[in-house]
């Protein structure tokens, strides 16, 4: 096709997607408020952008907590079981 996707193009597409996912959510939630409430079981599902925040924070938490667990406790050198 001849279109070269440079890094800044990709970055731009990413930002558009991120923004779109939140905007569409806001629109949907405020447009059909009543039916949205009926479908959801939990309170937080009515907040627009909840999954975005949960995704971001969750990812950070998983990485940080797991790395901490590894460094402080669980990780050993590769021949640990031969030596012990």
């Amino acid at each position, binding site marked *: 096709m001849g279109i070269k996707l440079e890094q800044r193009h990709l970055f731009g597409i990413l930002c558009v997607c991120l923004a779109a*996912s939140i905007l569409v959510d806001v629109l949907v939630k405020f447009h059909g408020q009543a039916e949205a409430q009926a479908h959801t079981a939990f309170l937080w599902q009515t907040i627009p952008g909840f*999954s975005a925040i949960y*995704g971001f924070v969750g990812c950070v938490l*998983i*990485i940080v907590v*797991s790395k901490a667990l590894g460094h402080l406790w669980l*990780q*050993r050198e*590769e021949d640990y079981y031969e030596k*012990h």
Partner: protein
Amino acid sequence: MIEWVHPGLIFILGALLIPVLKGRWKKIYLLLLPIAALIDLLYMSTSKGVFWRIPLLGYELVFGRVDQLSLVFGYVFTIAAFCMTLYALHVKEDGQHVSAFLYVGSTLGVVFAGDLFTLYLFWEVMAFSSLFLIWYRKTKASSEAGFRYIMVHIFGGICLLAGIILHVQNTGSIAFNSFNWGTGWGYLPSYLIFLGFIINAAVPPLHAWLADAYPEATITGAVFLTAFTTKSAIYVLIRGFSGVEILIWLGAIMAVYGVIYAVLENDIRRLLAYHIISQVGYMVCGVGIGTWMAIDGSIAHAFCHILYKALLFMGAGVVIEMTGRSKFTELGGLYKYKYMPLTFWLYMIGAFSISGFPLFNGFVSKTMVVEASAMAELPIVWLLLEGASIGTFLHTGLKVPYLTWFGRRDKDKEPVVESKTEVVKEPPKNMFVAMGITAFLCVFIGVYPQALYGILPYPANYNPYTVSHIIAMSQLLLFTFVAFWLLRGMLHGTPTITLDTDWFYRVWGKKFIWFCEKPLISFADSIDEKVRRIADSFVWFSKNPPVASRIMMLTVSTVFLRPFNPNPLYTRYANDLEELRKLYPAEVHRLAIGSGVLLVLMFFILYLIIYLTYGVLWV
């Protein structure tokens, strides 16, 4: 009369012919067997019921319990077996194919088993046949991991057997249906059977065998391993323990546990193995919730998981086949080599599926279980399961491709695979065809979920493609990507291993063996020694009893007289003792034969007197 055979039998008996065929005919035969089994299943689906009953010892064995639940598992196992066999078509060693087919066949046996004895029989065959898929790798690590694998599975099998025996004693029937569940010793049979099942389902803390053994298996064998043991365990859990509440929590914790361990993993297949544990957590959780939607969700998730996990392991397998390496510290920058882009994209279809991208099969199955938890009003469970999704995408969709196919951004680390000539091995093409078919199935089910929903046992009034689901999932995945990109420096592989619950039996097991070999054996040896000494002293005594008794008397006397030293009696005794000991065994005093005869005669006369006077003079 039924015209069809048990599909497991097709695989098990078919396996026997594999060594006989050669070359192209063998390959055609290998592919035909799963197809034949699938056609067989389609015939079986037309008439549900209970077949192939065999009376045994007063009980009735049921080999063919055909209903929608067992059929759906039968379908996915057979379809997967076809793809995996195609993936393994290039393997020359017949034993690997035979083991794989025995494994598949016994799994089908478990799925259609209607009674507990049949279940147990096939359960054990599964364990042993899968063991060989690990051992065929023929490395030191794989033989050790295989031993640990089979030890754990033998333990699980014994628990299962104990539970079955107690259950049969209590209820008198060997039918395999829902087990009673409650608290108290009366439910011990159920607990034991439950324990046997959850070991195979790799529920923590009894899960370490999976992450320990699967990465050490052969490249093609590991693909087989991912599907059958854990998913048949889900099937039996659905049959026997659906709705048991503890499974909800075990499942939710499992889902997160696998994800946390996967962050720390350096080996590509071990990371994927922890993700098996994570995804099976969703299924276990669904079984625990027990509603129709939840059970359907578990089954759908099992169906999809078999396909995409096989695809992921196939992709990783191609990487290992081509480079000979499986650790992230040794991989990177592979994208530019021939066949790697193809592998990458096929792998990514599996990664998108497992992460639950819309249009891929994970989205239509995983969200069902999550929705079931919402409907059952379990907020913590919902959060845990969604959280596990984040981690799943992070690892399989982002970390693995990043560290495997794309180079590390730090310029000071030289690219790990140096020259074109290092990636020497051209991978067999059948691997890619297999991956392609599996990928197609993943996308097909994702785009047309009704194909899967139609064969689920309970009516699934679930539409995954609602606006709110798509938005929620898109947000989750996009923002996870953002977080990954910002923190990607923290995710590089480290040359370490992570301790898991197998630490207990690996370290304490070694200590126990040391205890048996050193302290226990030296204790046994010392007892042996003492007994031997006592026996030796009897032998010494018997050589010359009169002299020996004199020696003993002298020894006693000298001991008594020693405090009174100097004493002429003592010194005389002591000297005599020394002499006697030196001369021992001295000449045995011989009696003339007449004296011997006289002694015997006297003994008999004495006996005669006692006999005659018995009852008269004394009683």
